[in-house]
């Protein structure tokens, strides 16, 4: 793992405007609000958080599938924040995405071969025969057989479809892959197959992953570093072992205590959260978590906590730490 970041985001914001009847902007959904993060080469960065915390929006913004409202984005040192779609095209090959639902992210009217060949047609100039060979090679690498080339997505199982999704992402030979809940829709036995495959491919190709998931145990297994999101903010970030051993932010503590363990003898003390996630339309003042935080003080209600380094590489945004 080298220290040169493959991707860097500085104070990234992705806001979705809400328009009134006359088309005027009446408010913003602050899906991602002032997030800075760095992804090193060969690293897996786990991004966790609950539904609606903005982790998928962040993932998409990082590779410019969505345009950031504010902030800067660097791919391997190059500023890609302002690049036009055309300028971005050659860079697209270097950053790819794997989606959660391999069924709706594959075109049902194209067979696997067509889906994969299309990727190459966009990216490259090779002739058809070479492309076909490349596709067959990759099918083999992701654990599919040549006969799957002419299959349609509906003829494949969930695990096989996710393998196709992976093959499609890997065809342009990316350096960075955003994996948005890649194993969440899969059964336990298939899940471990795909996890193993992701790890093997990372080693072979020196890939960097941004691994988005709500499943803490999978994130723990996959990631080198983990970031925790709440209501559009990155509230804590640390190396995986550190974060799971010593979670500092109250939200991270709640999240970890809620994860069930496959051991009937452990009866851990759960921190039960009051209330529900506030709307990102009108986020609370001060610390975004203060409405549900068991330790909230007056300061938390008024003042937004800046992110501080609480230990070596351990960042947290909380007044109380």
């Amino acid at each position, binding site marked *: 793992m080298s220290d040169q970041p493959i991707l860097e985001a500085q104070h990234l914001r992705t806001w979705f405007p809400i328009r009134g009847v006359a088309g005027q902007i009446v408010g913003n959904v602050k899906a991602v609000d002032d997030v800075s993060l760095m992804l090193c080469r060969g690293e897996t960065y786990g991004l966790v958080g*609950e*539904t609606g915390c903005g982790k998928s929006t962040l993932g998409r913004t990082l590779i410019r599938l969505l345009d950031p409202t504010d902030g800067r984005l660097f791919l391997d040192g190059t500023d890609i924040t302002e690049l036009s779609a055309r300028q971005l095209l050659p860079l697209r090959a270097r950053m790819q995405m794997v989606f959660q639902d391999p069924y709706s992210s594959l075109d049902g009217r194209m067979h696997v071969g067509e889906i994969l060949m299309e990727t190459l047609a966009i990216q490259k100039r090779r002739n058809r025969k070479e492309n076909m060979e490349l596709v067959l090679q990759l099918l083999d690498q992701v654990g599919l057989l040549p006969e799957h080339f002419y299959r349609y997505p509906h003829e494949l*199982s*969930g*695990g*096989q479809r996710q393998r196709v999704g992976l093959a499609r992402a890997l065809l342009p030979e990316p350096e960075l892959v955003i994996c948005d809940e890649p194993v969440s829709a899969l*059964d*336990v*036995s*298939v*899940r*471990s*197959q795909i*996890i*193993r495959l992701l790890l093997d491919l990372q080693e072979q190709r020196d890939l960097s992953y941004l691994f988005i998931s*709500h499943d*803490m*145990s*999978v994130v*723990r*297994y*996959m990631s080198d570093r983990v970031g925790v999101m709440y209501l559009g903010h990155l509230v804590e970030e640390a190396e*995986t*072992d550190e974060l*799971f051993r010593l979670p500092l932010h109250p939200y991270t503590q*709640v*999240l*970890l*205590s*809620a*994860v*069930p*363990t*496959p*051991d*009937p*003898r452990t*009866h851990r003390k*759960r921190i*039960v*959260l009051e209330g*529900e*996630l506030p709307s990102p339309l009108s986020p609370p003042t001060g610390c975004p978590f203060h409405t549900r935080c068991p330790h909230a003080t007056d300061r938390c209600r008024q003042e937004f906590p800046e992110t501080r380094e609480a230990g070596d590489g351990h960042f947290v945004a909380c007044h109380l730490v």
Partner: protein
Amino acid sequence: MMAESILEVNNLTTRFRTERGTVTAVQGVSFHVQRGEILGLVGESGCGKSVTSQSIMRLYDEKRFARYEGEILFDGKNLLTLPEKQMQAVRGGRIAMVFQDSLSSLNPVFTCGDQIMESILIHQKLSRAEAKEQAVEMLRLVGIPDPERRFSQYPHELSGGMRQRVMIACALSCRPKLLIADEPTTALDVTIQAQIMELIVDLNRELDMGVILITHDLSVVAETCSRVAVMYLGQIVEEADVLSLFEHPMHPYTRGLLKSIPSVSEGRREDLYIIEGTVPLLSQIPQGCRFRPRCPYATAACSERMPELEPLPSGQKVRCFRASELAEGGPSHV
């Protein structure tokens, strides 16, 4: 254990007629549920856990494509031979069900309160005012703050966790003896999942009803259930109390499943265990033991005939020829 069985399923087989011939989704499933206990029914997609539960309620159309065999004893009666009229009194009355997807299970054009009242009015002889009172009481019971206001809200106005609570309130409104919860927390976030599971466990104790919890998540089972049945391809392959199952899993499939769960406390210490292959289609059920093609311990005998679900001296039941032999091979967690 001397507790009274409220439900006894004996040799249940459910077949469906399809365009490509008959498939057997559930084959020879037997289990029982006692008063006050939570039985976990676990397995992966397509293992027949939902079909089993919906067969108990007889939700599949028997005139057109479904066929049930075996018997389901509830209150001393065989539900499979009960006339439709009486069955309707059982559904939602003495046996209630909570489904995974609360948004599509609740009717979007009626308020939450109306939907709870509907089941109360069908099953109990009460006036509308009394029914309303009871419905509000149910909302309070499932931990919904400000139940009077929630009563007149529509499902889309509530969050996923709140909707699931409304579903539970609906299900429990007639004080059922048996609650079937089919993946009640799968669509929810972990913090909300923890709340809902806690609610189900509390209500199970308070109302002294039996619960069948259907899930694919072994961790949820470990924390809530007292007994567990593991299903694979339409059959129960192992049944045990929760401690035995997690500490001495006997069936190779159960062992594989447990080893495939990455640990939250440990991180990546060793390679994650992989169960090779995939679940076969119901139309291509393997000869002999159904798990044989994916089993690392399979022998020639496994392909010749199908093992029965047999009790071991420990009380655990397992469907595997080599179970006792493998059990002597030492602790299975490692």
